[in-house]
């Protein structure tokens, strides 16, 4: 099966999942291959490479180790392997991921046959794998890296936390997008913002933005209700609400808006610029943008994933470049990375292939 045929089959299987995979058309996938390998046909034929020609060779077997229960990382990683034409061993978290089963059920038999899945990491998988891609905590990545013999390709995607920066938005245009970025997937993804830093273009603007965001959270939640919460998650959110309710009662630098009978969403305004370890599940902080955000975040910036900007300009991206995030995008599109997205600053296809050059 050639790259183009694989792209068509994958796009067909991914089509019903556009709400979390984005638009996945054959051309989109081929443009991704072209962006990373220089030519969409590089896996199928000799392509021009400087004065010579070259061909990409995909790994025979890719082992994907996926930790989170959200479908994004698993599907994105699996699709990387499928578009390259590799066979794929997928270690899923306990309980599996229904969306992955759903996706595979729509693949043609010859592509589906290139996937072996399991909830346990089988003993022989590392030995069989030519490349290993791991999504998980620093500890998980380190533990697996130690098990993978040198000579095999190893790519680790550690956990990330994301944020938004509102530089100028007098009319609160970005609020609806901020609510969507926060609410989608109930904040379980590493592209989910935990905090929006809002520049005080006039006194009290960040607080007013928080209030507007609360309205948008309510509006979004009415159309897209929160998923079910465990008792533990309820405790976590209600604890956070209780703590901020107490503080807000006696401190004007703190305010809280909360909605829904089931702890559906929470917006906390707090002047302290620290990067919050939010309770997640639609709990979002709004803080005035400090004069030097880089200094305020300090070592936290090493784990920044995406930064949503408003407005999203290159000038602003340059201004906040030193934060160390690997992606800048408009607020409202934080959850919609393109297929060409460098996850954690790393290309997702190029590091997996090897090249054979022809100089005839």
């Amino acid at each position: 099966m050639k790259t183009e045929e694989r792209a068509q089959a994958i796009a067909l299987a991914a089509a019903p999942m556009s709400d979390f995979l984005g638009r996945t058309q054959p051309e989109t996938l081929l443009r991704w291959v072209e962006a990373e390998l220089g030519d969409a046909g590089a896996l199928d034929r000799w392509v021009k490479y400087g004065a010579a020609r070259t061909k990409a060779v995909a790994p025979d077997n890719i082992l994907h180790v996926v930790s989170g229960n959200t479908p994004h990382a698993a599907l994105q990683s699996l699709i990387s392997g499928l578009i390259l034409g590799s066979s794929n061993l997928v270690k899923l978290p306990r309980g599996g991921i229904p969306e992955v089963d759903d996706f595979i059920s729509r693949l043609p038999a010859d592509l589906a046959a290139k996937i072996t899945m399991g909830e346990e990491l089988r003993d022989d998988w590392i030995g069989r794998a030519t490349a290993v891609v791991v999504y998980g905590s620093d500890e998980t990545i380190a533990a697996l890296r130690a098990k993978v013999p040198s000579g095999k390709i190893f790519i680790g995607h550690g956990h990330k936390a994301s944020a938004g920066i509102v530089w100028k938005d007098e009319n609160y245009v970005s609020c609806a997008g901020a609510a969507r970025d926060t609410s989608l997937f109930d904040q379980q993804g590493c592209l989910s913002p935990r905090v929006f830093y809002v520049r005080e273009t006039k006194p009290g603007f960040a607080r007013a933005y928080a209030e507007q965001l609360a309205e948008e959270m309510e509006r979004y939640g009415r159309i897209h209700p929160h998923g079910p919460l465990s008792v533990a998650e309820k405790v976590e959110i209600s604890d956070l609400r209780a703590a901020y309710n107490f503080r807000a009662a006696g401190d004007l630098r703190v305010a809280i808006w909360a909605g829904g009978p089931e702890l559906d969403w929470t917006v906390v305004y707090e002047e302290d610029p620290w990067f919050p370890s939010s309770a997640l599940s639609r709990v979002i902080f709004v803080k005035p943008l400090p004069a030097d955000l880089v200094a305020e975040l300090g070592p936290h910036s090493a784990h920044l994933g995406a930064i949503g900007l408003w407005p999203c300009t290159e000038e602003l991206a340059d201004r906040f470049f030193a934060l160390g995030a690997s992606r800048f995008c408009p607020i409202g599109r934080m959850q919609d990375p393109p297929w060409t997205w460098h996850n954690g600053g790393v290309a997702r296809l190029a590091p997996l292939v090897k090249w054979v050059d022809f100089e005839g």
Partner: protein
Amino acid sequence: MQDRAEQTGWWEKTIAAWIAAPEARGFADVLPQLHAFHFRQNAAYRAFAESADVAAEVTDWRSIPCVPQDAFKHADLRSFPTEETVKTFRTSGTTGEGFGQHHFRTLDVYEAAVREGWKLGVLPRGPFLVLAPHPDEAPHSSLSHMLATLAAREDFIARGGRIDIARLQAATQAVCLLGTALGFLRLFEEMQTLGMRLQLPLGSTALETGGYKGSGRDIARTDLYAMFSDHLGIETGNIFNEYGMTELSSQFYARGPRGLHHGPPWARAVVADPVTLGEVAEGETGILLVYDAANVGSVAGIRTRDLAVRRGEAFELLGRDPAALPRGCSRAADEWLAR
């Protein structure tokens, strides 16, 4: 009208007398009045209560607002003039979030609650051996103070983080060991390294308390108690757990690996729904709210961060969030942020 100090003094005497003779007063009578006192004396508490639409006068102690534990980190929850403070206990605190402080105008009520609660809980009489730092070494630890209320200076056998195992070996009559779960765990590890096992005299007992916060350890109570048997020869039914915290003045005790926690008559635990804060039905899980009349100088109602199951007048402690499993890739970033 009494002045502030007089009112506080009156409450201290009243609660101390109640602790000494628990049958003399009813919880339902005292708590609403204590809330009214706190409401008038404590600005931070008053602002919180008003934000929750609770006035100074309440008829049902269950409608007293419970202050979240976290508030002790940010607010001055003192129901007496600052200059009259004789003691401040501090929580251990986590990175970046500071520590909580519980201030006292007198330790008489606190110490009475410790002693009488111990007696009413039918806990071991001693002699004691304490595997935790003495207040001289840990002046801000409420646990050290509590243990020093029960045991004498010479009963403390941990100095500078080292446990004097020879004192355990020298025991010739039944002893009661007091310490933190983590402290006992370290003792067992040290004994294992030394290849040592002890058989303490028959009838020896132990009381362990506290979790494993910040240690990266988490051991089920049944497993920990099995270690007591293996290393010290203490029967698991002779081991007690204490549930207490810096923000409280009273303690709850459970006996054995599956024992339920009971409190003294001047303190009540309510297992509440985390959303509505209403008491859950028998056998259901919720967050633990504790009402403690011995908290004369601060606030009576504390919203803890622990989960529990309602079991009659007692509760089965589950601790922090046992069901929370990582769900997404941003979840573990919390662990990193908390470092």
